[in-house]
C-alpha cells in the first residue's frame, strides 16, 4: 500500500496537456528548404538520399519517402536543406506530403466532414504490421501511453477487426502478409477507412525496390490519412487524426 502510493506520487502528472502545442526537443522532423540558390548543376543531395525522396528544379522533398536520415542536409554545399522539430506533417492527400521551397508548414489536414460525423467522438483502430520493423509499431503503442494519452479523444486500438473503424498499416506490405491484410480488412464492418503509417507503408520506403513486396492493397484502397516518418512521431499521428476528425482538443 505504502509503496503503491510512493509510485503514484513519483508518477505525477504525465500527459501532454495540449498536443498541438508540444515541441519535442531535438526531434528531427519537418524539413525546410531555404531560399539559398543551389550551386549551378549541383546534384549532391540526389545520390545520398536512400529512398529517392528528393527532386530538383525546384528542390522538393517527398515526406512519403523521407526517412529523415539527414544525408541530404550534410551533403548540401550551400545549406539549402535543414530539419526542424516540427511534427505536423500528416496529410489527407499523397500530394500534400511534398515539401517545397519557402512553403513553411504544409497545409494542415483538412477536416473530413463525413469522417467527423461518423467517428469524431469515437474511433477504433486495428493495426496491421506488414513488414514493419517495430519502430512504427512501438510508436503506435506509445500513442496510447500516459504521455500522449490518445484515448482521451475517444481514439483506441482494438483487438478485433470487427470492432474497428479503420486499419492502420505499417511496414512496406510484404507478400507473406498480403492475405492476412486482405482478410483483416474484410473483417472490418462498413464504413471504414485506411491510414498509412510511416514511409514504408506510404511508398515502400527503404524497401520500395524489394521483390518481396505486394502493395496491391494500397492500389485498391486509397488512404484517408498519410502519416510520414521513419518511424512517425506519435504527435504526428494523433494530431493528424484530430485534424482529420475535427477534434478541437
Amino acid at each position, binding site marked *: 500500500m505504502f509503496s503503491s502510493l510512493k*509510485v503514484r506520487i513519483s508518477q505525477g502528472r504525465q500527459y501532454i496537456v495540449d498536443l498541438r502545442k508540444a515541441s519535442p526537443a531535438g526531434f528531427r522532423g519537418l524539413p525546410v528548404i531555404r531560399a539559398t540558390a543551389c550551386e549551378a548543376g549541383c546534384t549532391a543531395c540526389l545520390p545520398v538520399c536512400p*529512398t529517392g525522396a528528393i527532386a530538383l528544379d525546384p528542390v522538393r522533398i517527398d515526406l512519403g519517402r523521407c526517412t529523415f536520415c539527414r544525408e541530404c542536409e550534410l551533403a548540401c554545399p550551400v545549406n539549402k536543406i535543414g530539419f526542424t522539430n516540427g511534427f505536423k506533417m500528416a496529410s489527407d492527400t499523397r500530394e500534400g506530403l511534398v515539401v517545397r521551397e519557402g512553403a513553411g508548414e504544409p497545409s494542415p489536414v483538412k477536416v473530413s466532414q463525413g469522417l467527423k460525423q461518423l467517428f469524431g467522438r469515437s474511433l477504433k483502430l486495428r493495426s496491421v*504490421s506488414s513488414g514493419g520493423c517495430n519502430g512504427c509499431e512501438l510508436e503506435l503503442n506509445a500513442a496510447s501511453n500516459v504521455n500522449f494519452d490518445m484515448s482521451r479523444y475517444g481514439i483506441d486500438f482494438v483487438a478485433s477487426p470487427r470492432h474497428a473503424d479503420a486499419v492502420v498499416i505499417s511496414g512496406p506490405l510484404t507478400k507473406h502478409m498480403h492475405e492476412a491484410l486482405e482478410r483483416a480488412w474484410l473483417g472490418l464492418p462498413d464504413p471504414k477507412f485506411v491510414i498509412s503509417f510511416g514511409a514504408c507503408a506510404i511508398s515502400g520506403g527503404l524497401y520500395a525496390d524489394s521483390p518481396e513486396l505486394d502493395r496491391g492493397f494500397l492500389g485498391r484502397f486509397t488512404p484517408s490519412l498519410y502519416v510520414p516518418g521513419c518511424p512517425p512521431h506519435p504527435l504526428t499521428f494523433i494530431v493528424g487524426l484530430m485534424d482529420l476528425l475535427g477534434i478541437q482538443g
Partner: protein
Amino acid sequence: MSALVVDPAEHTCRKEAFFERLRAQLSEGARLVGYYGRPADDSGQVVITAVLSANGKLSVLRTGLSRPHSHRALSAELPAFQIFERELHEQYGLRLHEHPWLKPVRSDAPYPFYSLKGKEVHEVAVGPIHAGVIEPGHFRFMCLGEVVHHLEIQLGYQHRGVEALLLKKDPRALGPLVETIAGDTSVAHAWAYCEALEALAGVTTSFEAQVSRAIGLELERIAMHLASLAGMATDIAFLQGGTTYGRLRTTAINSSMLACGSRFGRGWVRPGGAWAKLESGQQATLRANLKLLKDDLAIINPHLLGARSVQHRLKGIGRVTREQAIELGIVGVAARASGIEVDARADLPGPVHLRYGIRGVIENSGDCWARAVVRIREIDESLRWLEEVLDAFPTCSPDAARVGALKPDTLAVAVCEGWRGEVVHCLETDAAGGLRHYKVQDPSLRNWFALALSLRENEISDFPICNKSFDLSYCGNDL
C-alpha cells in the same frame, strides 16, 4: 563490440577437415556464434562459414560443398545448429539427414504442423495478426486441456528481402537500411555494420566515436528493457508497472532524440564515426534524465518485485533450464536469465568496454521472473556505466573519419551486444572490393525456439507473459 577481419581463403579447408575441426573446437569449449552459407562463384557450390568464439576471440572456419549436398545434420547431435541448418536447407537446398525439423524459416512453402492425437487434446492457432499492436507471426499450441504440450512457431510474414537489398547499394551508404533490420535495436545493428565495414576499409574510428556509439547502445538498452518490463507488467495486469515503466521509457528515448534527432537512435551511428551530438547543454539534460530514471526506478522496482501477485505470475513460469539454453545456443537476456555468462560487451570487448567495463548480470532460475530481474539489474548497471562515461566525456561530439575503398576478397565479422543479445554482421568483399555477400544475424533467430520450449507444460494463458519475457523480433528473424 568486436570485429574480426580475415582473408577467408586462409580459413578454408576440405569438408572432412571442416566438420572435424568444427566439432573439435566446439567440444573444446568454443561457442557457436553463426553458421551460414553464401553462393559460390561456381553455381554448383555453396560456401559454408562457421563463426566461433573462444577465449575472448572470434574465429571462422570455411568450406565449400557441392549442391545439392547431402550429409548428416549437425543438429542431430548439436541442437544449437538447428535454426542455421534450417536456413541452409531453405536457401541452398542442402539435404540434411536426421535433422529433426526442417521447417522453413522465412518462405511460405507449405510444411505440416505437428499434430497431437488423443481424446482430450486440442490445438489453438493464433496469428499472424495478433490482438495488440505488434508484428505478425503464427503460433500453434498443442494442448492437453489447458496445458501446452508443445508450441510451434511459424514466422516469415515479415520477410522483406533485407539481405538482397543490402547488396544493391554502395556498401558505405547502408546506414538507414541497416537501422530498420530490427528497428527497435537500430543502434546495435548500425554499430555492427559500421564496425565490419570499417574493418574492411582499414579505418580506425576515434575512441571518442566509439564512446558515443556505446552511449547510444546503452540508452537503447535501457529504453527497450523498460518497454519489455512495461509490457510484462501490463500482461499480468500490474497496471502501475505498465504505466510507470512506460513513461520512464519515454524519458529514455527522448534522451536519444536529444542527441541524434530520433527516439530510436536512428542516425546515431554512421560509418567512420557517430553523428550524435552530446555538447554540455544536451549532457545536462541527459544527466537530469538519467537521475530521474535512477530515482524513480528505485521506487517502482521494489514495488513490482515485492508484489505477491507479480511473484506468483512470474516465478516458475516459462522456465528454460541452463542445460537447454546451452544445447540450443540461445543468447542475450534469455541466456543470462538461464545462468549462462554470454555478453559480447564482456566476452568480446572493444576499446571502450576494455576501459570502461560492464559488469555482467546473471540469474539462474530461467523463468519469466529471471528474465524480468535480468532486465532490471541491467538497467541499473547501464545507468551506472553511463554516469562513469559521461563523467569522463563532458562533451562527446566526434568527427567522422572518411571510409574509403574496401579490401578485396576479405571477410569481416562484427558482434555487438544489443539489448536482446548478440547482433552479428558478416560482410565479405569480392576481388574488386565490392560487397559480395552480407549476412545479418539478429539474436531473435536463435532465441525463438527457446520461447517454444519455455511454454511446454505451462498453461496456455501463460503464453503472453512468456512471449513478452523474451520480447523477440519478428522482422529481425524474417529479414
